[in-house]
């Protein structure tokens, strides 16, 4: 039984976890950097401990200080939130070794899925389509050339241990391959301590579609349908919606079934997401996010399930209390991320409310948006019976937003959502470019 839980994160997601704990009657401990002493998680948690200076490696990535705090304050569990240590297998292992419950998958599962080559192999073994490419890390330039010839240009090089665009290189012609491979290896080594690089076919105009799953590690696995995260800016998701506005029902079903099968074969425990790229009538496994995701509220609104509460219950060893047939996905949900484009003091912060609008934020008027961290100001999520009505509700909600003191992407988001292309539903990952950059 978890009675006290340490939240090893900050900002909006820390507030989200604290709210779930309050709903479950679990006490919380917030840990924070010196920059976040005035933050909402510190104010909301039952106890709060400063764990270091503002730079993340001194505080939110400081494993020793976090685990020491959890042990000293007699916590039963640690929730890593999103980002930071949430997909760090070594951290999960140390939490387990300290006799604490890690709210997330088993450390071995995180380790396996953290390696892109290993994850692709696991997907392949489960019979899931992957983008054509090397099934192992590239041996040398000759191997790379042969593989590229086999799958056809353009190709993309990716760091096996990587993520977030680091160690990635798109190669359109064979002449560029040698130099790109060198650069990718160099970056991979620098950022991830592992020079291994593999190759995949590069899809020019894919959609990003991901399947949300819950698994209890005891045979119970359900999916909560998909989220379409195709609206991105520099690989950062801006809008997420469910259901996807332009997805063949057959594809949807196949992706859901494939994801459930993969999680069953992995013996996965916890909440997780399988990310796919979809191009025309085909879908390709991209990776598994072995953690909660920023956009999880979208699935919460269409499924009426609380994913953070579910994570905690699963980590306590409980079996899923429902089967796939009990899951009812209804209506439409859309999330809009309001991001700051500058740091500073937020002098005015009016966020929307009212029917069918949810706001997840950790800020208030007077809050300081720190330059050290993620720039998210708020997530606004709406529910409606269908997509057309949902877009109207989201535009109504965004119209109520008033943020002064910092600049944000609010106007861009309004423009995106009101655009013909977004309303039409037939767009790919270049929508932001088309709507916001070319119109300038």
């Amino acid at each position: 039984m978890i009675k006290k839980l340490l939240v090893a994160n900050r900002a909006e997601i820390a507030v989200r976890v604290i709210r779930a704990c309050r709903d479950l009657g679990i006490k919380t401990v917030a840990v924070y950097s010196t920059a976040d002493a005035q933050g909402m998680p510190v104010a909301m948690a039952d106890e709060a401990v400063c764990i270091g200076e503002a730079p993340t490696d001194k505080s939110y990535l400081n494993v020793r200080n976090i685990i020491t705090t959890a042990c000293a304050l007699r916590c039963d569990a640690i929730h890593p939130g999103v980002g930071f240590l949430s997909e760090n297998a070594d951290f999960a292992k140390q939490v387990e070794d300290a006799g604490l419950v890690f709210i997330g998958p088993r450390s071995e599962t995180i380790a396996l899925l953290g390696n892109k080559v290993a994850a692709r192999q696991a997907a392949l073994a489960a019979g899931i389509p992957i983008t054509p490419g090397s099934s192992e890390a590239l041996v040398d330039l000759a191997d790379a050339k042969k593989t590229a010839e086999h799958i056809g240009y353009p190709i993309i090089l990716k760091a096996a241990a990587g993520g977030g665009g680091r160690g990635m290189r798109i190669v359109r012609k064979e002449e560029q391959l040698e130099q790109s491979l060198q650069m990718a290896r160099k970056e991979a080594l620098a950022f991830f301590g592992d020079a291994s690089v593999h190759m995949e076919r590069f899809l020019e105009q894919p959609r990003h579609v991901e399947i949300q799953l819950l698994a209890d590690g005891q045979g119970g696995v359900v999916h909560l349908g998909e989220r379409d995260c195709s609206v991105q800016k520099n690989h950062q998701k801006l809008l997420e919606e469910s259901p996807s506005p332009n997805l063949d029902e057959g594809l949807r079903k196949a992706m859901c079934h494939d994801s459930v099968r993969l999680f069953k074969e992995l013996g996965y425990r916890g909440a997780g997401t399988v990310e796919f790229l979809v191009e025309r009538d085909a879908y390709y496994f991209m990776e598994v996010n072995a953690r909660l995701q920023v956009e999880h509220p979208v699935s919460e609104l269409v499924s009426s399930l609380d994913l953070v509460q579910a994570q905690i219950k699963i980590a306590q060893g409980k079996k899923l209390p429902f089967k796939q047939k009990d899951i009812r996905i209804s209506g439409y949900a859309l999330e809009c991320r309001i991001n700051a484009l500058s740091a500073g003091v937020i002098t005015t912060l009016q966020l929307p409310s009212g029917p069918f609008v949810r706001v997840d934020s950790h800020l208030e008027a007077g809050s300081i948006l720190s330059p050290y961290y993620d720039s998210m100001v708020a997530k606004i999520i709406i529910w409606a019976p269908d997509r057309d009505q949902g877009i109207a509700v989201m535009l109504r909600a965004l119209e109520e937003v008033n943020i002064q003191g910092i600049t944000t992407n609010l106007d861009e988001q309004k423009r995106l959502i009101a655009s013909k292309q977004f309303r039409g539903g037939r767009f790919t990952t270049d929508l932001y470019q088309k709507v916001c950059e070319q119109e300038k």
Partner: protein
Amino acid sequence: MDSIEHMDLSEVLTLFDSSTLSELEISCSSFSLKLKRPVVGEPVKAMKQSVQETQVKPTPATADNTEELEIITSPIVGTFYLTPAPDAPPYVQVGSKVERGQVLCTIEAMKLMNQLECEYSCEIVEILAKPEQLVEFGQPLFKVKKL
């Protein structure tokens, strides 16, 4: 109360503190002054644990008289011990004169005993943290007088 030209700083500060102002600028024949307060919204709840945001490096404490006192704060999170072992004598006591490099205390984190060494010679004026309790990052441990 004095006219503005003859006010001293503490009078102005006291007034400012007890007002609802966020900024105050004064310039006159004898001085110019600009005060500003961050307009921070009140936290949802009062903070559970008071945090003194001090630096890791010793910083001047508020002078008691005219002595120059410093605060030594915790560089890590852990359990604070004044003795190397349960029945051993303490590393230091109030009044102890400490050399640079001498151990002041241990802070236990994940079963490792971390010895905190003094960065300069000083005299222990006050022990600020409670033994065998968790100290957080930046928490004041000792008030010392530099020698």
